[in-house]
Structures are given as structure tokens and as C-alpha cells.
């Protein structure tokens, strides 16, 4: 998009490319900021099955919020309640301050991109995209002029006259996106928007989605089960499980500071070890674990001696060496059980003395001529800062 030309599709001032993420770009850090979408104690039951259980969540204007969770965790139900296809059994959804309880889907300032795309098979690309505008009572000339611009934005102009079945999966995905964006919704809901695309296309499309979202300044809520997708797209992620939001945070917070074993295990790979707090001081803490012995950890306030905790250590924060490393890092001994070369890095499974496995990944950036291999005795080391102590 040419930044000089005023774009009629722009509903609000878009953040210029490269602008620093100031406080206004992270409104969730500002307690005074007014949420754009307020989900308050929303519960949805189907018969005696509770799909969404007392969820409260604030989402701010211009966010690209990802609801992340496995199948059946309630993320799609939450999205469908925002679109108006399901009514909350309890609780309230406010959109821009307005209660949505009695607003039917066709009157909501939201649009949805369906997982199956739900393109009208009997209409051309052009007519699919124009559908929403024509329902608003726009004249055909005006509607199709806007459609042409939108097709340009999603790079589909040559396909305007095709029917959906004549398009590839990636093209269909872009038609669905264009159709959902044409009415300039305040909020765009995307249900597994990239789920049907192959890996390579998915990666390209992720950045395309971000580009479009930033160009138009529309608030996006994306439902996905793919953690990579969530990490790439999101300004913030809400991890859902069993109808409950387990943690909300920016991608790096979710990854580096998981709030629970569930989140730590769900996002990426993690080594989890149970143990008891052996020493808790304001500046240092030690946890005794059967698997690793005594481990110096980052201090966590509010923990007492003897309390059961879990240590979460990301595999890439652990170093491997043949010699005992110098310094005060935690060190354990083990034998390499398995090595998997994965191009940019190698994954190791190290068998500890007690039989437990420790997962370690090593970057192949400076892969030496004699890499650590099968059955070698090794020292695994990690600094106290690499550990995260979890209580639930």
C-alpha cells in the first residue's frame, strides 16, 4: 500500500510502519485504558456440557488477539458468541461499550472469517466479496468499486470473475478475508484462518494477515490451535483449556513466564520436574528435586520452605558440554540417549542418573566438527535465570 495515497478503506489512522510500540500500542499495560471488547463472566452451556466457563477478558482497539487452545477447549464457542451465533448462558459481552446480548449477527459491527471459508459456491469471487456491501443497501457501482480495491489489497484482481471451486486453497482464504473485511467491521473474528493451508503458505500468509491488519487498523480476534501461528500473529495470546482462560499475555510472556504447568507444556517444549522448596530468600531460592538434585532458581516471592513446586526449564536454555562447566550454573550429569538433527538446531534427550529424560536443544550456529553424539556422558547446565518455578 502506498502510504502517500489516502486509502478509502482506512477507517482509522493506522500505525505507521516502524513506529515504536509506545504505551498506546500496548493498552493492556495501562489500567485506565478502556477495553474495546469486554467479556464479563461469560459462561456457555450446551445441555449439561459447559463449553465456556466464567471467562472474563478485555481486548483493546487495534489488537490482534489470539485465542489458543486444543480442540474442544471452548475457543470457537467464545468466538461464535462474539459473532452472535451463540448466546451466552451467563455473563455479558460489551463491544465498544454496547451490550451485545440482543443484537443479532446481521446487526453486529463484527464480521467473521470461517474456518471452512464458507464462500458462496454459486457466486463469483467478486459477488462473494460484494455480498456484505449489497446487504447494506450500497449501490452496485459503489459496491463493486470497493470490491475492486479490496481485491487489490488481497492481490486477487485477476480472479474476480472466478467461482470459488476454480481457486486454490490460498486464494479462497484471501477471498474469505476480503469478504469479511469489506464492510470495515470494528472487529474481525477469524476461526482458524490458516488451518487449511500448507505449512509454507501458512507462514507467508501469517505476515500477510499482519500487514492487512496494520493497514486497516481493524481489531482481530483469531482462534487457533497452532502455537506457532499464535506466537507469530498475536499482540496478546489467551491460552484456553477446558472452557477456562489459563493465561493471557504477550507471546514472550506466555513462553518465558508461563503461569502454570499446563501453559508451559502447551506452548513449546519444556522440561518439568517436581520438587520441594529447600530455601526461599528474597534474593535467591533453592528447590530440591529428585531428578536434578538441588537447583538454584530465580526467587519467587510468597513461597515457603517445604512447599511442592514444579520447575519448568526450556530445552534451549540448557547447555551441554563434555567437561564440567565452570561457574555457578546448575549442573547435572547424564548420558545422551538420542540426538535428532533438525537443521537449524539439534535436539538431545539426555538420560539422567535417576532415569528421567532431559530435553536439550542446541543451536547449530557454531556446530563444531565433533558434535556431542549418542551414548556420550555429558554435563547439562542451566543458570538460575533459566528456571521457572510453578505452583500449579
Amino acid at each position, binding site marked *: 500500500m502506498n502510504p502517500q495515497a489516502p486509502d478509502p478503506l482506512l477507517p482509522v489512522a493506522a500505525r505507521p510502519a516502524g513506529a515504536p510500540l509506545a504505551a498506546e500500542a500496548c493498552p493492556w499495560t495501562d489500567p485506565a485504558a478502556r477495553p474495546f471488547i469486554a467479556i464479563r463472566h461469560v459462561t456457555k452451556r450446551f445441555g449439561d456440557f459447559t463449553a465456556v466457563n466464567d471467562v472474563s477478558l478485555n481486548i483493546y482497539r487495534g489488537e490482534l488477539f489470539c485465542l489458543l487452545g486444543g480442540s474442544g477447549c471452548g475457543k470457537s464457542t467464545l468466538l461464535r458468541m462474539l459473532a452472535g451465533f451463540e448466546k451466552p448462558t451467563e455473563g455479558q459481552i460489551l463491544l465498544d461499550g454496547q451490550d451485545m446480548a440482543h443484537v443479532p449477527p446481521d446487526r453486529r459491527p463484527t464480521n467473521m472469517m470461517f474456518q*471452512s471459508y464458507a464462500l458462496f459456491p454459486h457466486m463469483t469471487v467478486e459477488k462473494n466479496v460484494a455480498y456484505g456491501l449489497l446487504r447494506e443497501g450500497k449501490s452496485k457501482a459503489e459496491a463493486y468499486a470497493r470490491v475492486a480495491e479490496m481485491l487489490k489489497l488481497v492481490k486477487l484482481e485477476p480472479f474476480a470473475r472466478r467461482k470459488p471451486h476454480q481457486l486454490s486453497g490460498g486464494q479462497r482464504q484471501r477471498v474469505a478475508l476480503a469478504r469479511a473485511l469489506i464492510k470495515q467491521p470494528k472487529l474481525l473474528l477469524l476461526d482458524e484462518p490458516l488451518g487449511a493451508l500448507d505449512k509454507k503458505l501458512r507462514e507467508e500468509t501469517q505476515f500477510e494477515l499482519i500487514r492487512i491488519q496494520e493497514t486497516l487498523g481493524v481489531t482481530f480476534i483469531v482462534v487457533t490451535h497452532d502455537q506457532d501461528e499464535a506466537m507469530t500473529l498475536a499482540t496478546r495470546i489467551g491460552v484456553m483449556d477446558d472452557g477456562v482462560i489459563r493465561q493471557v499475555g504477550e507471546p514472550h510472556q506466555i513462553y518465558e513466564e508461563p503461569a502454570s504447568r499446563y501453559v508451559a507444556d502447551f506452548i513449546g517444549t519444556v522440561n518439568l520436574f517436581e520438587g520441594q522448596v529447600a530455601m526461599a530468600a528474597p534474593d535467591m531460592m533453592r528447590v530440591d528435586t529428585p531428578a536434578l538434585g538441588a537447583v538454584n532458581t530465580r526467587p519467587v516471592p510468597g513461597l515457603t520452605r517445604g512447599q511442592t513446586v514444579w520447575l519448568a526449564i526450556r530445552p534451549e536454555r540448557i547447555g551441554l558440554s563434555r567437561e564440567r562447566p565452570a561457574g555457578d550454573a546448575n549442573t547435572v550429569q547424564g548420558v545422551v540417549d538420542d540426538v535428532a538433527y533438525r537443521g537449524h538446531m539439534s535436539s538431545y534427550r539426555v538420560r539422567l542418573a535417576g532415569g528421567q529424560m532431559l530435553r536439550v536443544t542446541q543451536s547449530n550456529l557454531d556446530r563444531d566438527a565433533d558434535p556431542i553424539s549418542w551414548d556420550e556422558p555429558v554435563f547439562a547446565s542451566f543458570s538460575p535465570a533459566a528456571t521457572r518455578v510453578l505452583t500449579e
Partner: protein
Amino acid sequence: MSAADNSPQPARAPRRGLARLLPTGRTLVIAIPMLWLLVFFLVPFFVLGRISLAEAIIARPPYSPLFERDAEGTLAIIASLENYRFLLQDALYRNAYVSSIRIAAISTLFALLIGYPIAYYIARSPEPRRTILLLMVVLPFWTSFLLRVYAWQGFLRREGLINNTLISLGIIDQPLVMMQTDFAVYIGIVYTYLPFMILPLYANLTKLDGALLEAANDLGASPMVTFFTVTLPLSLPGIVAGSMLVFIPAIGEYVIPALLGGPDTLMIGRVLWDEFFQARDWPVASAVAIVMLVLVVAPIMWLQSVQNRRELQ
């Protein structure tokens, strides 16, 4: 053999010698329906066509032979289009055709208007109810068609159920004349052929993706607008199939107009019957039947070609 090198699976080896003359499995499978069509459709059709070109005579069979030896012993084919010209000239036949098409068309329209909502409702019903409803649609087939049409006489006649009810409720004081009218024929046809409208529509509407309706709703279409812009166009193949299944048999319907219609109800099926069995004019009757067949087949073939072209696009 570079071509064979490229293809991972070599084509089936060509059969040699006498084996070529033996039928393959595929031919055998196709042969059964083909044979059926030949014996029960094509052969009778040609017999009918041949009779329609003959002349009625008092003999057994009551039509002139196709081949005749004249005085010199040369074989001559005797065929004339006289019967077809007769059909064109006599207004009775023209009126009967037009009237049949009209009655069939109006009945089809009503069957569609009644059948569509039923099919839609069944298609949208949850599982146990759906099966029960479908069963109820086909249940009437367990009773003879003739009996069911007779039963309508009990409803429609002067002292029938409908008149008695309306009079006892004080809505009317004179019984309505329903029997022996076109109205009764419409009722009979719509009632009899409704399942043939519902079933193809149901088959079509169950395939309708609910997400499409939600998408239309989400884009600002009310349920009514969604119906006319999404559901209806997508169910067009079902509408066409159902309408054909009602329209075609309704055109040639004989029993319903005979049992429920009056002397004014002119339908080609009845004319055909009278021509064969009353007038015993087999050649004219055959011509009536052939023209009817052409009238019915022509629109189907046209529709089929339109549909094929649409699918190719």
C-alpha cells in the same frame, strides 16, 4: 519403450486373439441396464411409432400392415403422417395437450410451494426426528395409490368430510362443489406426487452447509434475505429434479382426473385411453402418445443441456 518407462503403472496388456471377442466385466455390467432400456423402452417406442404411421382398419391387430405387396409383387412401405396431421387439425387434441400441461404445471408449482418448507424442515431437524419425518413422507406408499385417490372422494364430495365440517361449524350453509372439478384434480395430483417433490429437495437441502447461512447472516443478511440469496439458488438442482418428477407423470396422469375430475377436465391421458379403448383407433392413439412423449422429453433434454453447460463453467 520410453513411454512405458515414464508411467509407473503399465497399461493393462491388450487382449490377444479370440479373447478380444469375449465381453469384458465392464461391458457385462453396463449390458444389464442397456438391455432393460432396449426391451422395455426402445422397442415399445418403435412399435408405437410404427403403429402411429399406419391406418386404422377393422382387423386384428386394428391397424394396417407396414409392408404390402402390390399387384406386381413389389414390396412397398405404407406409412403416412396423416394421423399427426389429424392431431393438429382437431382442436380437441390441442386443447387436451395444453390443458394437461397447464394442470401439470400448476400442480408442480403447488407441490413445490408445499414441499419446499417440508423438505427444509426435515433437512434441518436433528437426527431421531429427521428419520421419523422422512418415514412419514414415504408412509403413504404402503397403501395403494388407487385407494388413496378414492379416499379423497370421501373428503371432497357433496356430503363429504370437508363440507360437513364447514357446515356444522357454520362457515358455509351450502355445500361447496369440489368433486368433479379441476380443483379436485389439483388436490389429487399434489397429494399423490408430493413425496417425489420432497425427497429430492430434502437430499439437496441436507447437503447445504450451515456455515454458508451463518456467513450470509454475519454479512448483514436477515434470515429471509439469506434464504433468497443463498439457500434458494443453491437448492435449484433439487427444485429442478423434484419438479421434473412431479411434472412428467402429472402430464400423462389418467387415474386422478378419471376419479376426481369432471367431464370438463381435459387431460391427454384420458384422451389416449378413449382413443385406444373407446374408439379403438390405435394409430391415432399411438400418435397422441408419441407427441406427448416428445412434449415431455424435449424440455428435459433442454434442461439437462443447460445444467451440463452450467457445470462445465
